Every structure is written in C-alpha cells, then in structure tokens.
C-alpha cells in the first residue's frame, strides 16, 4: 500500500500551524489522494497512471501549502510574500543600518587603508556585524518557505540598496571622465557593496540550502 501520509508530510511545507492542525491536514489530504488513487484503479487504470492522476490533484505543492496557510492561519492579513520576503528584507536592512549608526555613535574609528594614493575607510566593526544580519534575513525567509533566490535577495538587501545608491552617482562619475572619480567609484563599490555583500553572504550560507521541512525532519 502506498504511504500517502508520508508523501504529504514531506511535500507540504505549511507554516505556523499548530502540530495537531498540521497532522489533521496531512491525514485528510493523504486520504483524499488515496481515494483518488483507488478510484482510478477501480476504473481499470494501471498503478502508475492512478498515481499520476492522484498527484495531478495537487498540482504545485508550494502553492497548495501557501493557500492552506492563508486559509488556516488566524493571524492578520500578512501574505506569503510579505512574510517570506519583505519582512526579512526590512529586518536585515534595519539591522545593518542600526549597526552602522551604533558603530559611529560608539566612536569606533574606521580603518584607513591606502590603495595607491587613495585612502579608503573600512568600518571593520560594522562589517563584522553584517554576517549576523545576513543570517537573520536568510533564516527568516527560509522559515517562511521562501525560495533560495528570495533568501539570497533578503540577505544581500543592504548591499543591494548601496549598489542602487552607487549607481545613482554614476552620471557624476561619468561626467567629464575623471580618472579620480572612476577610481573613487570603483573603490566605493568594493567598500560599500562588494565587501558588505561578502560579509552578509557569509552569515547567510548555512540557511541558503534546504527547507524548513527538511530541517525539521532531520531533528
């Protein structure tokens, strides 16, 4: 006999549902799949064709999980995208900004590094704090069943915002084609985008692979 319950439990990545409720849903959907399968068999279909018909009832497991979540959760109107993307982005951005402010407020001096004849300032204490916020962004997105691309975007959001800000300066950089401005722009990209992105990514790495469900199953 096919273990539909095991399949549903594995594939349905619902969030924030109490354990009893989740068990009920898994059992109920498994029964529906089993009855669809049995019904197809009774019509003379092969085992393989019957399984295919039963699975067609579901379509996309992720969509089903999202719809069940929004139907069952008694919380406010926060939708899946808000929970799995915008909220982690906001927290990561806020964390990184507050950390930078705190670093400056505490009087921690940036280190001046000379590249050729240009001095570049590195906020090491701030950069050291970034892996925490990168990890928070990726973790919150994964917890809300966000895809890997969403986890990546959430954890890198402070660097992405800086990248946009840097590109707003591009007309000034390109005007007149000053070598000094171009070098400053390049160093700015490394200093405020490249290195922070690497620090954020470092913290996010453990949360970029696997789903919340697989983590739970391992536990």
């Amino acid at each position, binding site marked *: 006999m096919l273990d539909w319950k095991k399949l549903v439990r594995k594939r349905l990545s619902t969030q924030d549902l109490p354990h009893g409720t989740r068990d009920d*849903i898994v059992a109920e959907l498994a*029964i529906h799949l089993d009855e669809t399968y049995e019904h197809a068999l009774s019509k003379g279909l092969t085992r393989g064709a019957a399984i295919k018909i039963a699975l067609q009832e579901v379509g996309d497991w992720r969509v089903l999980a999202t*719809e069940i979540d929004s139907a069952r959760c008694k919380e406010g109107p926060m939708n899946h995208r808000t929970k799995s993307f915008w909220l982690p982005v906001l927290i990561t951005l806020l964390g990184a900004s507050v950390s930078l402010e705190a670093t400056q407020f505490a009087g921690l001096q940036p280190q001046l590094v000379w590249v050729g004849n240009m001095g570049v300032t590195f906020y090491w204490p701030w950069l050291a704090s970034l892996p925490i916020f990168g990890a928070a962004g990726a973790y919150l997105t994964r917890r809300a069943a966000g895809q890997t691309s969403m986890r990546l975007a959430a954890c890198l959001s402070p660097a992405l915002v800086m990248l946009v800000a840097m590109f707003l300066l591009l007309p000034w950089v390109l005007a007149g084609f000053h070598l000094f401005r171009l070098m400053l722009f390049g160093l700015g990209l490394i200093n405020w985008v490249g290195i922070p992105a690497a620090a954020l990514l470092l913290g996010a790495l453990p949360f970029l692979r696997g789903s919340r469900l697989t983590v739970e199953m391992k536990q």
Partner: protein
Amino acid sequence: MPKRIRSKIARGSADLAILSLLAEKPLYGFEIARQICERTGGALKFTLASLYPLLYEMEKRGWVEAHWQANAAGRDRRYYRLTQTGRRQLALSREEWRSFFHALDALAGVSHA
C-alpha cells in the same frame, strides 16, 4: 454534457456549491468533490488543491465544522457539517447569486441564449 466552466467563474461560485451540498448532509472532502462533479455533469470540478483551502477557510469563518468519523470499513474521514452561521451565509449567497443572474439575464439574456 455541460461544458466545463472556466476556473474564474467556478471559483466565484465555489462557496455556494459547497455550502449547498453540506446543507443536505455532512460530507468529507473526496465525496464533496465527487458529488459536485457528478451533479453538475462535470461542469464544476474540484481538485484537492482547489477544494481544501476553501474548506479550511470556511471552517475558520465558522461556516462549517469538521470532525473525524470512521466509516463502516473502519476508515477515518473528516466530515464537514454546516453550522448556523453557514446556513445564514448560504441563504445570503443564494440571494446574491439570484440577484446576479437576474441582472445578467436582463443585460445579456442568458436564460434564452
């Protein structure tokens, strides 16, 4: 055989279809889907993915109540029963759809088409 109704129209009428069935007797998910398909001649079809989110939403709103019950073969199934709130909602839905059909009929003459 009636033509299969497009998903947008079917989705709009889903609450009415499910509540109407449950007003007759408590049913479980698979049976709800089967009866809707059978009684509409296949014009309305619910899959697992389209049915259960609706049932859970109705349960959250207090229109239906669910309980596990074993059938004669000892197999557990989750039966849905209409509540008083659900009956009021059904009456409201019927009235809304009646008005809608009257309006559409006056405009497009659907009952004579």
